[in-house]
Each structure stands twice: as structure tokens, then as C-alpha cells.
């Protein structure tokens, strides 16, 4: 593997991790808004219990991602910075409102509802905008009249492909987050909430799959090069669909492990994550060697070898140091029965 290929793999890994974490994050915020008036089911409490300690960590991944792009592929940073000015700024504005009002809603309890609405609504738009970065890198909406790549916003907003990506982003967010929250409620022994989230997952899942097919259809019309290269890996795409079906089994079938319980959310979460992993691998592989089609490739954008080595070393050292921290964090908030099964949930502990 060349250095540039290693670098893009690392970057792809970050994108994937962030994508999963962000769907959980924005989705949980959205569900906590939807169920805010249904106190009995505890669905909002569950969402908040997940969200409160994690949003900061998730947010840090966005920054990690941006930093990884310009330290590994500085030349791409120039083009990406220019063409993403408008979509990027929109994301930033929404993100600022979302994060701030999420924190505020936990503090100012009397105003919790309106504050939660602001953070829930802004939050669910963000994944749609984030994923629209992908079709922009396909190059259809760029022009080079001034010598630099410029984004033609009118073309972006009239492209069916962009809209299918956006809807796919939002429905996947709802899908993955309801799956995770179903699992989280089950571990927390909140069976009412569990049923609610299981139902949501059953609705959002098929929509996401249909949108994925729509993406392929529109891709064929708008970015044939990418479509053709993805089709080279058609068998893998089918494997990914099989994992989706396995996720469906996890949702619908009676549990093997517990009597009288429907669904195996843990199985569904894992199967669906694997499904997304495979599908995004196929997409990412087909996208190579381009970062922005056709002007920026991983080789033309790659950083200086000395810098790459130094950055790579900090990745290894940094993650070695952070890993125990993540494990400890996970054990405190995802695993500790005292946190998960609070009798009298004190959400918004800050």
C-alpha cells in the first residue's frame, strides 16, 4: 500500500466512525424531541441518558475529521474549503444552535420543551447536509471558470441525486439511532421505550434501503463513472443487503436469548452496522483515486512524507493513550447498571 492509500484508508475509517456516532447523536436528539410529551414510555429519558454524556465526544470527531483532511491531503483542503464554503457554513450554523440548545435544554428545566424543539429540529437537518458533501465531491456541480473549482449551487439544489443522498442521510440517522436506542432501552430494562424504538426502526429501516436503491439509480444518471465502479463490486453490495435482512431478523423474530421478548436489538445493531460498513467500503473504493472528481486525486493532494510520518506517529500514540479512556467511558455510560437503570432518572445532570 502506498502512503497515500494508507492515509485515505485512515480518513475513510474516521468518516465511518463519525458517521455512526453522528447518526446516534443527532437521532437521539430527534427522538428525545418527538417523545417529549409521552412521559410514560420514558423514550425521551432514554434518549437523553444516552445523549448527555456523549455529544461532546461525538462533536470532537467532526474536528478530528476536518483536521485529518488538511493534514493528510493539504491540496484537497484548498479545493474542499472553497467548494464547501456554503454547505459547510450552513452545517456550522445549525450545529452551533443545536449543541448550545441541547445543553441549555438540560439546564433550564422550565423551558425544556421549546429548547428541545430547537435542538431536535436543527439536529436532524445536519446529517442531511453532511452527507450532501459526498455528491458534491462527485464533481457534477463544479465549474472551473475562474481557474479554481467553484460550486454551482443552483445545480446542487436541482439535482435528484443530491436529494436522494439527503433523504438517505436523514432516514439512516433515524434508523440507526432507533436501533441503538432500542438496544439501550432493553439493557436499561425500559420495555415501554424499547417497544417504541423497535417500531421506529421497523419503519425507518425499509425507507433507508429504498433510498439506497434510489441513490444508485440517480447516480447512474449523474455520476456514471462512480456507478460503474461501484457495480464492479456488486457481490459485496448484495452481501450488504443480506446483512440488512439479518438486521430485520433481529427486529422481528422472537428472541433466542430471552423468553417472551420480541426482537434481538443487539444483533440488529451489529448486523446493520456491518451492512453500512460494507456499503461504504464499496462506495469509498469506487471513489478512488479521486477526492474531488476529476481534479483532485489522493496522490496529487498528498502531504509531505515527513509530515505524514509525524502525523501517523501521533495517531498511534494518541489512540494508545486515549483507548483506556474510551473503555472507561464506555463502561461507565453504556455498561454500568447503576447509570442505565436509574430509578429516578436525573437527566440533565448538568
Amino acid at each position, binding site marked *: 500500500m502506498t502512503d497515500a492509500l494508507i492515509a485515505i484508508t485512515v480518513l475513510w475509517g474516521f468518516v465511518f466512525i463519525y458517521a455512526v456516532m453522528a447518526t446516534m447523536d443527532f437521532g437521539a436528539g430527534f427522538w428525545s424531541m418527538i417523545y417529549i410529551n409521552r412521559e410514560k414510555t420514558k423514550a425521551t429519558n432514554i434518549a437523553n441518558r444516552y445523549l448527555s454524556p456523549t455529544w461532546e465526544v461525538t462533536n470532537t470527531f467532526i474536528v478530528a475529521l476536518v483536521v485529518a483532511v*488538511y493534514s493528510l491531503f493539504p491540496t484537497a483542503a484548498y479545493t474542499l*474549503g472553497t467548494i464547501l464554503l456554503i454547505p459547510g457554513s450552513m452545517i456550522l450554523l445549525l450545529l452551533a444552535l443545536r449543541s448550545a440548545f441541547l445543553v441549555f435544554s438540560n439546564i433550564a428545566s422550565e423551558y425544556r420543551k421549546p429548547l428541545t424543539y430547537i435542538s431536535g429540529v436543527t439536529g436532524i437537518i445536519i446529517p442531511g447536509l453532511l452527507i450532501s458533501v459526498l455528491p458534491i465531491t462527485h464533481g457534477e456541480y463544479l465549474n472551473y471558470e475562474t481557474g479554481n473549482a467553484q460550486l454551482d449551487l443552483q445545480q446542487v439544489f436541482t439535482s435528484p441525486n443530491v436529494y436522494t443522498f439527503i433523504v438517505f442521510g436523514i432516514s439512516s440517522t433515524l434508523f440507526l439511532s432507533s436501533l441503538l436506542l432500542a438496544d439501550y432501552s432493553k439493557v436499561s430494562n425500559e420495555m415501554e421505550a424499547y417497544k417504541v424504538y423497535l417500531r421506529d426502526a421497523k419503519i425507518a429501516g425499509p425507507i433507508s434501503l429504498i433510498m439506497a436503491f434510489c441513490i444508485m439509480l440517480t447516480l447512474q444518471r449523474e455520476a456514471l463513472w462512480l456507478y460503474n465502479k461501484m457495480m464492479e463490486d456488486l457481490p459485496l453490495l448484495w452481501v450488504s443487503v443480506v446483512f440488512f435482512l439479518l438486521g430485520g431478523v433481529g427486529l422481528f423474530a422472537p428472541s433466542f436469548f430471552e423468553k417472551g421478548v420480541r426482537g434481538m436489538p443487539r444483533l440488529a445493531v451489529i448486523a446493520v452496522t456491518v451492512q453500512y460498513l460494507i456499503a461504504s467500503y464499496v462506495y469509498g473504493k469506487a471513489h478512488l483515486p479521486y477526492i474531488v472528481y476529476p481534479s483532485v486525486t489522493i496522490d496529487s493532494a498528498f502531504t509531505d512524507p515527513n509530515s505524514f510520518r509525524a502525523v501517523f506517529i501521533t495517531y498511534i500514540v494518541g489512540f494508545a493513550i486515549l483507548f483506556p479512556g*474510551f473503555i472507561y467511558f464506555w463502561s461507565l455510560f453504556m455498561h454500568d447498571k447503576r447509570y442505565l437503570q436509574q430509578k429516578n432518572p436525573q437527566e440533565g445532570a448538568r
Partner: protein
Amino acid sequence: MKGKVCRKDVTIMDDLLIARSLFGTTMAFHIIFATIGVGLPLMILIAELMYQKTKDLEYVVMAKRWTKAFAVLLGVGIPTGTIAGVQLSLLWPGFMEVIGRVMPLPFQIEIYAFFVEALFMSIYVYAAERIAPWMRIASLILVALGALASAVLITNVHAFQGTPAGFRYENGQFVDIDPWAAFFNPSFFVTATHVALSAYVTGAFIVASVAAFKMLRNEYGSRIYHFHQKALMISLVVGGIASFLTATNGHTAAQYLHQYQPEKLAAAEGLFETQSHAPLAIGGFTDRETETVKWGIEIPWALSFLAGNSFDTVVVGLNDFPEEWWPPLFVHTLFNAMVLIGSLLIFIAIAGLAWKKFLKKDRFPKWFLWILVTSGPLAIIAIESGWILACSGRQPWVIYRFLSTAQAATTATDLGILFILFAGVYVILGTAVVLVLLYFFRKNTVMDDIDRAEKKNVPLFSTNS
């Protein structure tokens, strides 16, 4: 880059100006929360340690209340910081291209600092009742270290902008790139120390402001009065030490300017003619026409001494540089504001401590409390002045003598609407954060928290939403 002008030969000045204003506004807003975010964890840590030492529950209450304020401020500090980080690439793609190639390490390592802070902040807040006391202190130390590290590392990029190192640029190519040499660029330590210390100054005096205000509002001798007086004493000790160190280190920072960015020092001092035995102008406004500082006080020879520790040090004046390299002349006022506030804060801290410890008086006069109330906002003004001095004083360069701001800017036009949107969001967030803090602390009074702390087995940290 000197050879790379072609990219930006059609710059429309207005767009550049808006880009600069937009980024400057973002930074000016972020820095308020970021600085307090570095300073406050130290205060919380000290309160927790005081509790371990004295077993006085009021210190736990202090730690808890400050943590709450800190968590609310993070709700704005983190998203605005995210904006700052991403906006660097969106507005200054030419700059980030160079930084990515030559100077990627600080941003990279900063990510780990953010992670450490975010992980342990959540643990400290949401798991406080479930972890052992030593683990709570350890989490807090990690939060404080994470915040400090992020400040130091981001300042490192700023230091590099003033004293670039670790690469050569020849025939349109970067050669001999050494990212560690760039990391340890000449002004890194001085600048980072200054930023870190001034953040502790700010954190301490913000606490002092609030405590003094509450002392004015509550009856002398009441339990609440005493509670706030304890907080005030901690902050005066921390603030006094930190502001003294900030001033001495700031002196070194000025000497670095003399050595590395002489036109910035000349503009900061309003000096036009190169001379030895140069005078120091305090106050006043730099006048372009007469090439003097109007209405200022001149101390003969002092500038030469400050710049090089001897009266015959030659200090370079602005006239030795082409005028298009001149920084804006208003930086003189900003520099004065910062130094004046720095000196004032040292006096305030010494006066307060002397009154209490040496004169053994228990009650501060009202007028002195009012001065203390202004100390926090003054520290913020000093921070803002210092940064605008440092960034605007570097103009027209984004990387000193290597990459001009115009060359680094985005080629996109019509940035005006973005400026309005971002400014609007900052207004909303700024207003909301103040209202939320007021609301919360009105509803959860000190007495509520003290009562809770005194009842055993009532979770203190998670009981107040």
C-alpha cells in the same frame, strides 16, 4: 507564498475585508468561552483540593456550582470552537494548505486534548456520584490538563504564523519540511505561556467578580456572604500570582516582537523613527500625519530598555518598512489597554490580599468590592485586546513575510450574507447563555446546594435540573 500570486490576482478587496471580519468575529466570540474554559477548571480543581484538605463542604458546593457554569459555557465554547476550526479551512484555504503540509502537528495533537477534556468532563459530571473521590480529582485534573493543552496547541499555530520555521520554499516547492521544527518555532513557548497564564488570570477574576457582586448583595456576616468571601480569597491568590507571571512573561513577549516582528512592536508603540534611547509612549492615539502619539505620556528611553534591556538598544520604527507592510496603527491603543489592565489586576489582587491577611480586616469597603466586580470583565477586555493586537498587528501577513492574507483567502464572493448569519447566531447564543446562567443560579441558590451537601446521601452533582 511569494511565488504563488497568480491564484489570487483578482482579489476583490471587499470580500477579503468581510472574510477577515467574519473570522475575527468568530474568534472574538469563541475566545471568551475558550479562555474561561481554560481558567475555570483550575479554580474547580483548587476548590476540590481545598475540600480534601479542610473537609469544609462549602468548597464542594463551590466546585459544583462552578462546574455547572463551566458546563453551560462549554455548550457555547465547543460549537464556536468547531466553527473556528472549520472556518479556518473554509475562509483561508490557502493558509490551511500550508499548515496541513508543514505544521499539522498542533492541530492533530489538539484533537487528543479535546478528547481527553470531553471524556473526563462527562465522567466528572455524570458519573460523579459513582466514582471514588480520587477518581473524581483525577478526572478533574485531566479536564484541566486537556483544556490547557488545547490552548497551548492552538496558540502554537498562532506562534508559527508570527515566527514560521521548519521549511524552505524554493521555486514554487516546499523543501526540507521538518514538522517538529515547525512545532517548536521560536515564539512557541513564550506565546503559549502567555496565553495559558492569561487564561488563569481571567478564570480567577471572573470568579472574583461574581463573588464580589454577591457580597455586595448579601448582608455582611451572613453565611452566603462568607461563602462568597472564601471564593473571593481563592481567586485573589490565583489571580494575583497568575497576573504577576503574565506581566513578566508579557515583557518577554514584547522582546520577542522586537527580535522577530519589529513592525508589530513599532506599531504597538507608535514609533515611526528608528532610534536608540527610544521613548515609551503610554496612552494616546497614534497619528499618521504627524507621525507621533497624540495625548500620550512619554517616558524617555524606556522603550529601548524594554525591548533589549539596555538604553542604547536600537528600536526599529515604522518608517523603515514599506507602508503596505504596516500593521493598522490602532494596535497601539489595544496594547496599552492590555498592559494597563494587567498592571491594574496585579494591584487589585495585592490590595485585596493585604487588606485581609496583613491588616486582618474582615470586611471589604463597598467601593473596593465594586472595583473587584469590574475585574473579570476587564480581564476579558485584556484578552480581546491582546488577540486583536496579535492578529491584526500581523497584517498584511497571515504567515509572517511568507503568505499574505489576501493570497490565503477563499476565492468565493458574496460573503456578506454569511457574516450576517454568523453574527446573528453569536448574538442568539450570547444572549441565551447569559439568560440560562442567570435562570439556573437564581433557581438553585447557594443555600439550596449547601443544604443538599449537608444532608448525607443526597447526590449533589446530579440534583439540580
